[in-house]
């Protein structure tokens, strides 16, 4: 024996092939006889693989066996997978969704052992699909669970869930939610480039609208779909869309648009594909031509249909259309007996399939044929049936549309509430902001107000302080003057008279030396007294007093004084006169002390409302502010105080090295 590895490999291949090629019966045998669970499961698995989509009964039976076994041996994942696969055949071929639901229920009771999101979601999806045939609400609940359990990236499954839930909602008459689900499914499929299902979801929506009489909505969505299909270059799907559109137009009774759509559909038919749609379109065309009495065109279409008879017969959904077309054509060509045959065939098939629209149109067709056969009784009978059915459909359609608009309205109401709430929130926010702003401005205003008060009080304070000071300094001036006067008088009347008495005594005793001493003492007292308070002012008036002072200064200094003095006697009170006198006196005192002036000029002018005293010198001048700020220099301040006491104005014009002009303007009462 050649121990050639190539030979070995060949043998291995052969063995494997022989295994695969084993008959299904072989595995059935193993599955039925073995007691080894593992082996049994493996062989059942093989049976299932071989029977899937081929022998539904075997598949269903063995699936159940497998699931039971798997559950017993705690292989939940395996059970789940098989349960999912079992659902469709069980529901569809055996029409036993209850069984499917109960099997999935059993698996789901151990769902905590399933970690895979795909499996869990899938179980719910399949139970939902089964439930769709039993209990739509339960189905929707299942779909919701499926959505919860599928991971985000299980997008194809999520899309399926949405599509199925869309069907469920649609059947429930919840068109708004259905529409939403269809749209979501549509976008999922579009993203996945699964155009077939994309089309299905959109068609689901369109058909939902169309069946329930929302032709406008159906057309709108269909137009969108057509645009999309053209955009995606999926022209093979266009024919069916145009065909469906044509059916809608037929229902509305718009024959012009109906034929247009039919032509469109025919044009977009792929020539090679003589499938269902090909038959449907030509049947529709035949029917259209027949009912419009275009017999030759109708004949052409009928010929096409009859060429495809082998494809048509046995396929109920296209049989209906074929029978309908034949009947219509035969009616049009007055072959009533034959047409009666086809019409009845159509009715029969329609009833088998339970397509209400077709049943209804068959009734109408039969009624018409019997009418032409003059069998009015039967004609009426079918007509009645037609009417009953139409009315019920009409009512349902009305109810549906009511439901649709109701839910649409509810949604809009909710949206409106939401918008209102948003608006309210915005308003509240705005209110809050306004309030904040208001508070800010109020606090600002309060702060401003208080600072204003503070400033005002401060100013008031300063003002009153200043007033107090002025009052004080003026009182000081007045009291100073009074004091001077008192001392002057005391000196004069007291000490002076005492000295006189002493002098008189001495006159009699005749001590000449002492007498002279007394004389000089008296002279001194007199001078001091005079300086303190001029006797002249009191006795001869202000004008004389000023003249007197000027003359004294003129005599006792080198200053050259020119004076022009108007008489200002009896214009002022005694106190005011003293102040005026002092102003002149102190101005000259300043000139003599500081100005180093050679000459000076005094003018006292009397006007009707005021007097002006101007005293000018040609001395060294000074800087007013500097001097005024100098605290030691009292001269200017005193002058100013005296002027204020007289309610007058003082003007000082002085520059360094260019002399000084003091001008006092004193108002008359």
């Amino acid at each position, binding site marked *: 024996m050649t121990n050639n590895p190539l030979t070995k490999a060949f043998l291995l291949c052969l063995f494997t092939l022989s295994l695969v090629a084993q008959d299904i019966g072989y595995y059935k045998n193993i599955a039925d006889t073995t007691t080894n669970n593992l082996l049994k499961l493996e062989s059942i698995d093989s049976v299932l693989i071989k029977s899937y989509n081929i022998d539904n009964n075997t598949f269903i039976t063995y699936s159940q066996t497998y699931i039971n076994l798997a559950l017993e041996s705690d292989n939940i994942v395996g059970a789940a997978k098989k349960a999912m696969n079992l659902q469709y055949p069980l529901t569809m071929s055996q029409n036993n969704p209850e069984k499917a639901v109960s099997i999935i229920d059993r698996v789901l009771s151990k769902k905590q052992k399933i970690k895979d999101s795909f499996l869990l979601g899938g179980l719910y999806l399949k139970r939902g699909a089964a439930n769709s045939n039993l209990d739509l609400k339960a189905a929707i609940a299942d779909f919701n669970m499926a959505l919860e359990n599928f991971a985000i990236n299980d997008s194809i499954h999520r899309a399926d869930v949405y599509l199925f839930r869309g069907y469920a909602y649609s059947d429930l008459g919840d068109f708004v939610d259905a529409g939403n689900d269809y749209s979501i499914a549509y976008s999922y499929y579009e993203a996945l480039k699964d155009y077939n299902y994309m089309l299905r979801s959109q068609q689901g929506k369109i058909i939902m609208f169309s069946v329930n009489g929302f032709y406008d909505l159906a057309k709108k969505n269909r137009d969108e779909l057509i645009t999309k299909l053209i955009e995606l270059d999926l022209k093979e799907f266009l024919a069916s869309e145009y065909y469906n559109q044509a059916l809608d137009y037929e229902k509305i009774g718009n024959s012009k648009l109906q034929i247009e759509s039919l032509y469109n559909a025919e044009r977009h038919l792929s020539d090679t594909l003589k499938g269902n749609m090909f038959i449907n379109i030509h049947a529709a065309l035949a029917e259209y031509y027949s009912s419009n009495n275009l017999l030759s065109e109708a004949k052409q279409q009928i010929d096409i249909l009859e060429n495809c008879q082998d494809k048509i017969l046995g396929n109920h959904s296209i049989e209906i259309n074929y029978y309908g077309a034949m009947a219509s054509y035969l009616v049009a060509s007055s072959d009533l007996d034959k047409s009666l045959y086809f019409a009845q065939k159509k009715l029969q098939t329609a009833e088998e399939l339970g397509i209400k629209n077709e049943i209804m149109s068959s009734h109408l067709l039969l009624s018409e044929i019997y009418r032409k056969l003059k069998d009015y009784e039967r004609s009426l009978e079918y007509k009645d049936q037609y009417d009953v059915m139409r009315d019920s459909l009409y009512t349902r359609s009305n109810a549906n549309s009511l439901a649709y608009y109701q839910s649409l309205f509810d949604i809009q109401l909710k949206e409106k509430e939401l918008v209102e709430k948003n608006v309210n929130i915005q308003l509240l926010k705005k209110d809050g902001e306004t309030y904040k702003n208001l508070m800010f401005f109020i606090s600002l205003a309060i702060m401003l107000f208080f600072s204003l008060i503070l400033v005002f009080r401060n100013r008031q304070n300063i003002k009153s302080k200043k007033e107090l000071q002025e009052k004080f300094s003026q009182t000081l001036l007045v009291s100073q003057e009074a004091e001077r006067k008192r001392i002057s008088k005391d000196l004069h009347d007291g000490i*002076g008279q005492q000295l006189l008495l002493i002098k008189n005594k001495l006159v009699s005793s005749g001590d000449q030396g002492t007498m002279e001493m007394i004389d000089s003492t008296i002279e001194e007292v007199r001078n001091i007294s005079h300086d303190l308070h001029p006797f002249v002012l009191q006795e001869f008036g202000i004008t004389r007093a000023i003249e*007197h002072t000027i003359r004294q200064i003129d005599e006792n200094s080198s200053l050259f004084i020119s004076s022009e003095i108007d008489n200002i006697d009896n214009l002022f009170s005694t106190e005011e006169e003293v102040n005026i006198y002092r102003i002149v006196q102190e101005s000259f005192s300043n000139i003599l002390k500081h100005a180093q002036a050679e000459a000076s*000029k005094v003018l006292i002018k009397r006007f009707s409302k005021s007097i002006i005293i101007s005293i000018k010198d040609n001395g060294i001048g000074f800087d007013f502010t500097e001097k005024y700020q100098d605290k030691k220099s009292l001269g200017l301040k005193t002058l100013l105080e005296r002027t204020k006491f007289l309610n007058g104005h003082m003007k000082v014009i002085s520059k360094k090295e260019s002399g000084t002009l003091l001008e006092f303007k004193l108002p008359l009462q």
Partner: protein
Amino acid sequence: MKTFTIITADDHPLLLKGLNDFLLEKKYNLIGSGNNGREAYNLITKKRPDIAILDIQMPFMSGLEIAKNCKNNGLDTKIVLITLHKERELYRKAQDLNIFGYILKEFALEEIENCINSVTAGKQYFSPKILELLAEVFTEDSSLKILTPSEKKILKLIANDKTNKEIASLLFISYRTVEKHRSNIITKLNLEPKTNSLLVWAKEHQHKFIS
């Protein structure tokens, strides 16, 4: 006993008594004496004395007011003021108010006799100390007394042949001020308003004010 009548008034009783005693001692005909201005004036109006010796500062009425009233009422009593005040203004006033004497109180007792004698003779009497005060006026030409010292300064400069411009610059005053002073002086001295009149006058009286 001297025939002319005298009254006295002073608000200071001791001084009044001293004066009265002195007058009586000197045998003057003292017919009354008042303690204040009102009493003094009443005495004058009632008794019409020849001489009234009055203090200036008295309650109710000062010596000057009495003199004024006397003049206004045509009373010819000759007033002698006896006061501690030494004022040039009083001298001026005296000229206006028919006051015949002006004695400083400290020299009252020494000078009163001279004063009364002078007054009875119809001549004014002023204390020498007052005349000292008015020195120039009495030792020199009386016409100068009405000029101010500044005017006199200008007059001196004029006498020294200074022009107005020179005077202005010397005295640091404006040309116009000098002009004004000149015209004032001319008015006061009652000269003819001619350009040279002041210069001529100043030259003539030069000795009086140039010391």
